């Protein structure tokens, strides 16, 4: 690979209570790549994500982001990544705008209202909802707000957990376009999902995770999206 490794797993193993959750994972993600980790329930997707975010320590092996060992430089790594949790509920008593302002301040960033507006427009959150309390938002709207927050972090690496859950097809298309744009501008995107369609549309590489082991890998060739049927078949465990 010519592109420098932005996210790397090297013999990554995580064991908890005598159970092996991640077993000797090895992969690399380069700059500007969209990398999708597919897996069923209980495959170890959340654990993988938590390890890369520094929320969990590997039992052996190394998880690295931007060349740094996550376990050793947790704070530095956290400062340089943006995280979108699964089905996150931001603060219901604050508006979408206020939520973003709050989290940006928490991150130590200072963005003008204009910049926030730009981001919200980018994720296509309707303007008349910006100042409503978040408790009035639909699931899709909440997801969009969270995505906008991740965008505003301007981080070189984005970790997304089930980013399309709750989005309708139109919103999924918008989301895919956004992701591709970010990647084209140099951001590295690590996505954990079991939305096969979305992953195929946007990912440069798809990797299947099953029982903590990598069981399959697909790569995009040129500009053609990866074959959804093929991925689905392997994912569902159908005999070829």
């Amino acid at each position, binding site marked *: 690979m010519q592109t420098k490794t932005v996210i790397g797993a090297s013999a990554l193993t995580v064991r908890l209570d005598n159970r092996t959750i991640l077993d000797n994972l090895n992969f690399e993600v380069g700059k500007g790549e969209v990398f999708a980790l597919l897996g069923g329930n209980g495959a170890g997707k959340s654990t993988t994500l*938590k390890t890369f*975010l*520094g*929320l969990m320590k590997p039992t052996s092996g190394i998880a690295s982001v931007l060349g740094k060992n996550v376990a050793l430089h947790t704070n530095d790594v*956290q*400062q340089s*990544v*943006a*995280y979108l*949790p*699964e*089905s*996150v*509920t*931001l*603060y219901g*008593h*604050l508006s979408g705008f206020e939520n973003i302002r*709050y*989290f940006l*301040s*928490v*991150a*130590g960033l200072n963005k003008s209202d204009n910049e926030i507006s730009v981001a919200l427009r980018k994720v296509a959150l309707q303007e008349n909802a910006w100042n409503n309390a978040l408790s009035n938002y639909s699931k899709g709207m909440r997801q969009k707000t969270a995505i906008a927050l991740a965008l505003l*972090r301007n981080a070189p690496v984005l970790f997304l957990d089930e980013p399309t859950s709750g989005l309708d097809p139109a919103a999924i298309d918008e989301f895919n376009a956004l992701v591709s744009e970010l990647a084209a501008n140099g951001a590295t995107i690590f996505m954990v999902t079991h939305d096969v369609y979305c992953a195929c549309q946007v990912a440069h590489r798809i990797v299947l995770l099953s029982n903590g082991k990598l069981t399959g890998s697909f790569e995009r060739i040129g500009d053609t999206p990866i074959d959804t049927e093929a991925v689905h078949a392997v994912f569902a465990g159908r005999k070829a």
Partner: protein
Amino acid sequence: MMRFTDLKREAGFVFGHRQIKLTLLVVFLLSVVSLWTGFAEMQEQQATVEQLLEKDQAERDSALAHQPNYGSAAYYTFHLTYSPPSPLAFTAVGERDVFPWKHRIRMLALEGQIYETDADNPELAFLGRFDFAFVTSVLLPLFIILLLYDLKAKEREARRFDLLNVTARNAHAIWTARVIVTLVPLALVTLAPLVVFGLINGASLLSILTVCAIVIGNIAIWSAIVLAIGAAKRFASFSATHLASIMLGAWLVTTVIVPVTAHTVINAVVETPEGGDIVLTQREAVNSAWDKPVEDTWRAFIATHPQWADYTIFDPERDSSFNWKWYYAFQQVGDQTASELSKGYQAATLQKDTIASYVALLSPSLLTQRLLSSAADTNVSAMVGYENDVRAFHKALRKFYYYHLFKDPEFSQESFEALPQFTPNMRTLGESNKEN
């Protein structure tokens, strides 16, 4: 390091919740109301003392004017003794509604007078008083629990916990800031009314600061307990309300179960003379003296008052028609007979209190309550101190009258100007304890 921006942001965040503002308002109201009721009551008590002193003096003067001799003077005149409320007594009623704080006594046997209660309405004492000590030692922890129990658990349940920790430049700063921004206003709304009332009542700045320190200490301890339970690894997966149940359990155990269990155990362990026995013994001794030969009484009396050994002869010409000397001698002997039991009773009271102070180390609420009554001078030792004041005064009274009964029976109204006056804290002035 936490920056000011962090504090400011978290302050805005925390106060954005209507709940917080409401809770702080409620605590403020509770503080004000509890302080006000205590203040009003102590004002009342102070006014009562002044009124009573006036009446007492007038009574005594008019009674003395009609007396023919010292013996009957001592029999018919009463003296007011009292324990004035300290400047901070309004914060903690303490034992003032269970122990007496005023007595009118005369020179007769003290053991028959000192156990009377002029206590308040027992039904109100049974319900307990709504004073500042109650609010800060019992209610404030509940509010702390309500404010802080879901600090982290709420974020976990909404899946924001990881997001916050990852996004934050300094995750610790967020939690610390939220705690500080919640607790500092809580302390302020609780203590600001106290300072105001304290200054109005003329309490010294040092004593007011002491009370503030005690309350802040209680807030700190309870916050530590609540945060420790919230952060415990073992409870990491528990829901917020589950955590709250545990915290309430801790409150229940320390505020209810520990004191009450200790009370039962202490009562079983510490030997206490029956109050009834003291008065029965004293009365028997006093009344049997009428039937016994006079010498028996004198023997017992002279044993403790050797200085009057030469003056025991009754001369109806010189002394009054009734043998007052002997009368007061056997009153004193009655007291002496009961003194073992009486001392034992007081010692038991104090001993139980001392043990209770150790028990308080297991219960922050109890500790706060005790510290506050100690600062307000309304605890057990203060009330026992008052009892000893009364004893000291009675001793002074006897000293005065013995001189006139035994040595100088020449009756004159002017001699009553030397009559001892009761002052609070008389017990500390009793250097002449050896003399009788």
